[in-house]
């Protein structure tokens, strides 16, 4: 490379020019590789420990191996059957079913297929496991005997469900996540009003998150304004009151709100003491939606104040004074001059708080009771209690899509350089 130093007076020959460009390219490529090598360890680490787990979970929301894997003969036989024919499958299919039930019972796998089918149609589990218990004693021909054991085997709709779910991929978890169902005829329709759960839950999560965002803005805006306009020394001292909750464990703040808000808690005691509330009529402020909103507003308030403060710090106070000197009332001066300049802080804070709120799980679980649960709690319920992992994954995808959509909007609004720095 050093040999190519350009002589000040002489022109480069075409050959030298070519060599120089090649050298520069090589040097640039080397720098690129060096930068990539620095980033590579973390990038690989995140891809392996974080991105791929999430990708595999997302895959679970369409993955449907149970029926095709644990009832292979039935799956193959049903592929030849026309579900719209209004006729029961042939004897060969019944024979295949008996084989699958026998094998499934021996290997203890039939329960998995039965559970999967039960998500689609109740009583499918007992139909399969009940028949499997008797399948060992059966001799061909099977069709009549199976229908005698359980007349469910004479119901065309049951066969349609098995055929539909024998496909290795399914949209049924998403259909369930949007409170819809597939009719035996294959049509997708909304569930009856009283059975709808998830859309209502999603809607509640969104509007409670919006409410929490609005409350943090309402409380955070004046405080940030005060902090930005006070002299540095006092502002730094008051800032401790914002930063200390920010640095304190989420569980600590949640448990202290339990102590504050519960029936025999501090706030109720004070209200009773002042005579504002009678002793046997204490306010129920926790284990319901109110508890979730109050606690989460407190937990997320610093995430609103910090970005607001950092933007307001950059607005020169002389602008407001200039507006006043030109005859604006304090209100007009604020609305026309100060507020527009603080909009980047408002949007950064609001989107940060909203994104964090919408994915909350711990706080609603501890203080939310029945009415203060979020979609995250539903995901955890299906992960840990009902063990319907496909549905948990589908709900997770819906939540993730919502969060990423809002985040994309946010980075477009603010440019990719201002990403969520907490300070």
């Amino acid at each position: 490379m050093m040999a190519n130093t350009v002589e000040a007076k002489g022109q480069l020959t075409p050959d030298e020019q070519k060599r120089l460009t090649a050298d520069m390219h090589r040097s640039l490529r080397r720098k690129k590789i060096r930068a990539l090598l620095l980033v590579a360890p973390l990038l690989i680490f995140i891809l392996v420990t974080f991105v791929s787990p999430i990708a595999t979970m997302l895959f679970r929301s369409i993955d449907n191996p149970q029926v095709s894997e644990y009832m292979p003969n039935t799956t193959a036989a049903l592929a030849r059957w026309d579900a719209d024919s209004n006729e029961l499958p042939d004897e060969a299919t019944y024979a295949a079913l008996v084989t699958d039930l026998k094998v499934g019972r021996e290997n203890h796998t039939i329960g998995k297929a039965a559970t999967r089918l039960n998500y689609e149609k109740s009583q499918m589990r007992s139909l399969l496991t009940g028949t499997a218990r008797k399948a060992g004693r059966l001799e061909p021909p099977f069709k009549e005997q199976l229908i005698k054991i359980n007349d469910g085997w004479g119901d065309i709709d049951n066969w349609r469900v098995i055929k539909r779910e024998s496909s290795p991929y399914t949209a049924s978890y998403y259909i369930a996540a949007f409170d819809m169902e597939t009719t035996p005829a294959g049509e997708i329709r909304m569930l009856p009003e009283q059975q709808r759960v998830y859309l209502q839950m999603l809607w509640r999560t969104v509007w409670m998150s919006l409410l929490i965002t609005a409350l943090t803005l309402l409380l955070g805006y004046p405080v940030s304004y005060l902090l930005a306009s006070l002299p540095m020394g006092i502002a730094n001292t008051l800032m401790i009151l914002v930063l200390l909750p920010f640095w304190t464990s989420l569980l600590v703040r949640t448990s202290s709100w339990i102590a504050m808000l519960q029936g025999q808690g501090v706030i109720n005691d004070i209200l009773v003491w002042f005579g504002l509330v009678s002793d046997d009529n204490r306010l129920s402020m926790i284990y319901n939606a109110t508890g979730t909103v109050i606690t989460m507003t407190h937990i997320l308030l610093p995430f609103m104040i910090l970005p607001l403060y950092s933007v307001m710090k950059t607005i020169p106070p002389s602008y407001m004074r200039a507006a006043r000197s030109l005859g604006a009332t304090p209100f007009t001066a604020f609305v026309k001059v100060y507020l527009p300049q603080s909009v980047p802080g408002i949007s950064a804070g609001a989107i940060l708080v909203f994104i964090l709120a919408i994915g909350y799980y711990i706080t609603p679980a501890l203080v939310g009771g029945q009415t203060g649960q979020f979609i995250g709690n539903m995901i955890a319920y299906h992960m840990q209690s009902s063990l319907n992992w496909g549905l948990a994954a589908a709900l997770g995808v819906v939540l993730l899509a919502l969060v990423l959509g809002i985040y994309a909007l946010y980075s477009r609004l603010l440019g990719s350089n201002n990403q969520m720095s907490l300070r």
Partner: protein
Amino acid sequence: MALPSYAGPLETFWYYAFRVFCGMVFIFLISPLLIIIPLSFNVEPYFSFTEGMLALDPDAYSLRWYQEFFGSERWMNAIQNTFIVAVCSTILSMILGTLAALGLSRSELPFKGMIMGFLISPMIVPLIISAAGMFFFYSSMGISQSYLGLILAHTALGTPFVVITVTATLSGFDYNLVRAAASLGATPTYAFFKITVPLILTGVISGGLFALMTSVDEVVVAIFIAGAEQRTVPMQMWAGIREQISPTILAVATLLVCMSILLLSTVEYLRRRSETIRGITPH
């Protein structure tokens, strides 16, 4: 922000109303943290103030819940687990995050936006989704219910903070200093440890403290992928709040508040130090 001399009565009213409002917000922010401190010294097994406590009767206060905490094998075990996991994952986050930030701050890096997006994704994805994904994946790899799994998970969650703080520190970094060192004969390694590291150290440490706090406070992922043997302090608190609420939780909470005061002062000290180094002294 003093009240201007030309203010009328209405403006004076708003001025004081505004200050009172802000004062109430500050009380809202800090009172939950302060209220648990006296409650943790309650002699009764309640979450509320007894009459004796309000009358400042010394017999109404005790160290009973602290004794219970320090005498409990479960809690001590939880502290040990939290410590192991937090320290290991913080060190890993600091190393990986700093290296990546050094790469990200170079203008030659291709696909910068996309890479940055991946690196900070653990911060954006809701924890419950991360926890669900890690639960399946780590079980299939056979590292769920192990220290290794929990450490890897917490490292992934902590690195974005290191990447962001170190990248921010590097944005004010003068690369001419490294060039000067090279021109004086320093090898790249020597220049890195003698010039770059001391200047970005404050960023690395405060990013590390964020990562430490993330690990110490993290409960969602821990519930899903840690076993009974790896039970951390937040997991123990979570179980305690859900099952039987005893003021032991408040004693732990008080100790954790003290810890956050300590962490906060360290981070603030570091921030001011780095501003001084960069020549932006607070005034």
